[in-house]
């Protein structure tokens, strides 16, 4: 889409900034160096400052009961992470009465707070909250503005996820136990280390040394098979132990072996509370990242599909569709599985840039494109976004779309704007033999929707017949015959 179009459309009638209800909550399991009530005030103040500055929302503090009665919701969470002695801030923006904007989730974690003065701790916590607020404000500003001005949300151009993961460190394993020593020393062969994992599995829940050794293994062992064993050994402790959860989520973001990512994803399904938000954010990051191995990306996409419309879904799907990696099948799982989890009115902004820029030849790429097209083409109940409808005619002219141009022209018949400009473009496209037939057919269908264009179309088809250079292929249908049929049909129509 031409950005000027969007900017110009901003000039059309504007309303009040939308009303956003918010709540703040801080929590901890055991470590509480500053009282939670003070922390709540601290992070609320620091996070809201950058959010209110652009003037794009009206914020009202509520309880959880009234949270959904505003146009949108904002939840400000914070929590202390025991053992690692960190503090994390989470901001979640979501739907209230209005469901037209995507949900967004922003997280930021401080540097270690242990052994710091109270003033220094406060300063780090405030800084994390302010930074999170700024990033959420950046993501939200153009979208809230589009709501206020009652225009469609702008296409996602550079859809990076607004997350900063804090440092994740594992304490050096206490080498007092023989099995720990065997596992941690990777010069020992795989069988020895496997036996050590088996021995430590039963102790992971109660013995910190065993747990730390298994975490170390998840992050550092050279064998993917043993890393999987270590992940599985940590399953019981990971259900409730926050530091273990953080390490496993971090390992998932760094892992490149399919089977280990899948094992980590399986364990992470049991995480609840704020860790669940971090888990979902990690899954989305994996789906969006070029580096995620293909099969694992498919498994994660399947898990996310079951979660439905989660915060940052739009950004992740858009990033996934626009990723550069050449690995087969990555985009397809996003197009097939995840794009459909985005509510229909929001899909156009998610898919627009991919549909506009994609260049494809192979079957996998074509399948991803086709699935994306199917997901954004509407029906009577949910009409196709006008920007997508206009885009169909634009991309149908791109040779690099290969065989997919037939599919695009098929949809253009029913959805492209029924205008003189569309007719002109279709007739230009029809000069190219490979797509002449569907383009000519689309001309006929556009006139069916806008009979006032009949004379113009007949004139254009006559010109096309005179000047087009087609060599009918024996194995394909004859574009000259199609042109005649469309002309006759239009001439007969009243």
């Amino acid at each position, binding site marked *: 889409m031409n950005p000027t179009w969007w900017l110009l459309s901003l000039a059309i009638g504007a309303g009040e900034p939308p009303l956003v209800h918010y709540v703040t909550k801080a929590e901890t399991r055991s470590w509480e160096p500053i009282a939670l009530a003070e922390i709540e005030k601290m992070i609320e103040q620091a996070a809201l400052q950058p959010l209110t500055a652009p003037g794009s929302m009206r914020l009202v503090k509520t309880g959880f009961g009234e949270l959904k009665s505003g146009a949108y919701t904002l939840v400000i969470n914070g929590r202390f992470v025991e053992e690692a002695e960190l503090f994390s801030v989470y901001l979640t923006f979501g739907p209230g009465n209005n469901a037209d904007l995507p949900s967004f989730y922003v997280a930021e974690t401080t540097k270690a707070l242990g052994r710091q003065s109270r003033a220094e701790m406060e300063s780090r916590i405030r800084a994390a909250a302010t930074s999170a607020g700024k990033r959420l404000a950046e993501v939200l500003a153009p979208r809230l503005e589009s709501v206020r001005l009652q225009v469609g949300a702008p296409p996602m151009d550079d859809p990076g996820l607004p997350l900063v993961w804090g440092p994740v460190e594992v304490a050096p394993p206490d080498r007092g136990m023989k099995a720990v020593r065997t596992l941690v020393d*990777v*010069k*020992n*062969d795989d069988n020895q280390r496997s036996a050590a994992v088996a021995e430590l599995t039963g102790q992971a829940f109660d013995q910190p040394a065993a747990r730390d050794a298994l975490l170390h293994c998840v*992050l*550092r*062992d*050279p*064998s993917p098979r043993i890393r999987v064993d270590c992940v599985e050994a940590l399953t019981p402790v990971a259900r409730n132990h926050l530091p273990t959860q953080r390490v496993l989520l971090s390992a998932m973001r*760094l*892992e*490149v*072996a399919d089977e280990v990512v899948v094992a980590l994803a399986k364990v992470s399904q049991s995480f609840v509370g704020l860790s669940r938000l971090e888990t979902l954010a990690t899954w989305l990051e994996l789906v969006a990242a*070029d*580096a995620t*191995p293909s099969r694992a990306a498919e498994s994660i996409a399947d898990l996310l599909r079951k979660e439905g419309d989660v915060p940052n879904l739009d950004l992740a799907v858009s990033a996934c569709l626009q*990723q*550069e*990696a*050449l*690995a*087969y099948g990555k985009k397809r799982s996003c197009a097939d599985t995840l794009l459909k989890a985005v509510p229909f009115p929001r899909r156009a902004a998610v898919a627009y840039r991919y549909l506009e820029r994609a*260049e*494809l*030849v*192979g079957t*996998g*790429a074509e399948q991803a494109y086709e699935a994306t097209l199917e997901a954004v083409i509407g029906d009577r109940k949910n009409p196709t976004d006008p920007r997508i409808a206009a885009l169909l005619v634009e991309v149908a002219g791109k*040779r*690099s779309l*290969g065989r997919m141009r037939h599919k695009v022209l098929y949809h253009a018949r029913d959805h492209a704007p029924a205008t003189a400009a569309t007719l*002109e473009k279709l*007739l*230009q496209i029809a*000069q190219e*033999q*490979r797509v002449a037939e569907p383009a000519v057919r689309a001309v006929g269908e556009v006139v069916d929707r806008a009979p006032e264009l009949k*004379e*113009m179309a*007949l*004139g*254009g088809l006559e*010109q*096309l017949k005179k*000047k*087009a*250079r*087609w*060599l009918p*292929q*024996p*194995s394909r249908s004859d574009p000259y015959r199609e042109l005649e049929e469309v002309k006759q049909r239009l001439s007969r129509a009243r």
Partner: protein
Amino acid sequence: MRSLWVLIPLLLPLPAVAGPLKVGVEVRSTAGSWQPIAPADLSRAIENAALEELSRPGQLQLARAQKGTASDLLLVVEGRLLDEAQTYTVALTIGPGARADAPSLTAAETVVLEKLSRAQILEKVEGAARAAAKGLWGVLGPQLARLGDGTQVGPPPNLDADKTLPWQWGAVRIPKASVSSAGDLDSKDHQKRQATLRELTSLALSEASPRHALERCALDHKDQETRRGCLEALRPLSRKPGPTQRVVIEVYRKDPDSRIREEAIEQMLYFTGAGRSEAIQAFLEAASLGKGYGPLAELGDLPNLDLVIVKCLLARRKGEARPTEGQHFACIELLEPLTHQRRRAILWPFLKETDKNGPRYLEGAGEREGSTGTPWARAVDALLEDATTWDPELEDILWGRYQRTLSSHSLQVLCDYAVPSKRLLERMLEVVQTAGAHCALRAVEKMGKKEANLGVLAKDRLAEMQAMGNFQKGVSADDLGRVIQAISRGEK
């Protein structure tokens, strides 16, 4: 409304090339943590040097690309500083702008900048930019002549298959590993080597020196299994942009072991940015040598693709006298994103080759071609796929092939298209008479119905065959009679 419509310059063909082509220039730079000079200064230096060199032949008007201003071609001048290796790569890529028929080409040069003064660095990168520009012009110049020549008949200018690809790979430089156990990778004891490999794999996740040891091992180790283990250990590290990616690409380019190359491909599929562009050039280079095609068939139109396909069709693998059929199939598949003119420039010399022992000969299967795919048949189909006019010279080529090998695909194409001419009619009558081919009889009928003078000739010759019984009995006398009647009805 209708009369107004006629005024719209709807179907204007592209003007032929006259005067210099307008080229929009875009400059990009990539840098990591090592920046001996501000990347912006380097960008300026390479831009000036490259543009000066490219402007010299006087056929290009080069100016910074501006939004909303259409240019015939687009030139991207890209500089990349690589950490650790301390090298600088200049890549020039030119491709279609408003001229969709322009080829896409790229050239690159890499120079080492270690321990050089600012003045020496600037001198060296300018030299690299000039060398890349010369390489680019070497392949671009001859192809510019083809631009704007919309003709689809007669022989196109040959692509120079002897020309080397203009992408020059710099040497891979890996700092010396200081980790003490690295030497054990060379131990004669297999167990010890494996233990060291495991240790380095783990350490390399957080330290540079073990990574350097693994990179050196992946490139140079004498033992195949160890080389492969070292390469596998680089998997998580090659996911990030940087020097490891260049090492993996070099392994793919140079390693003789197919399993190691497969592992390298698997890693290269996840590269992004400049690493991705280099990986694609490595895939193209391999295709040009007949050493594999990676994911090329999925990537559409790429810089240097035309030249690569020509080289690919000619490449012989070690120990083989000529390219295999499978190799030819893979090369022809790469034609998919190209326009008809570009396909024609590539395929024409191969289609014309009649010497079975000639380097450009495409294997067929003679009379059995109808039941089996052959490089000859696929090449002909690829050429005709987007053709918009029937080329009489192609007809001669097809007829020549039929005469020499009884190529059933060539005959089928001649029968199916059957663009009426006296010469083709006589050829088809000859086929009816000597081979009793039904498709030729249908072609005779089609031509006879379309043009009256051909109809008279066809009826006369068919009647003669019918009367004398002088034809191959794949068709019957009744078949000939039916066609004579059909042409007569068509004439009325």
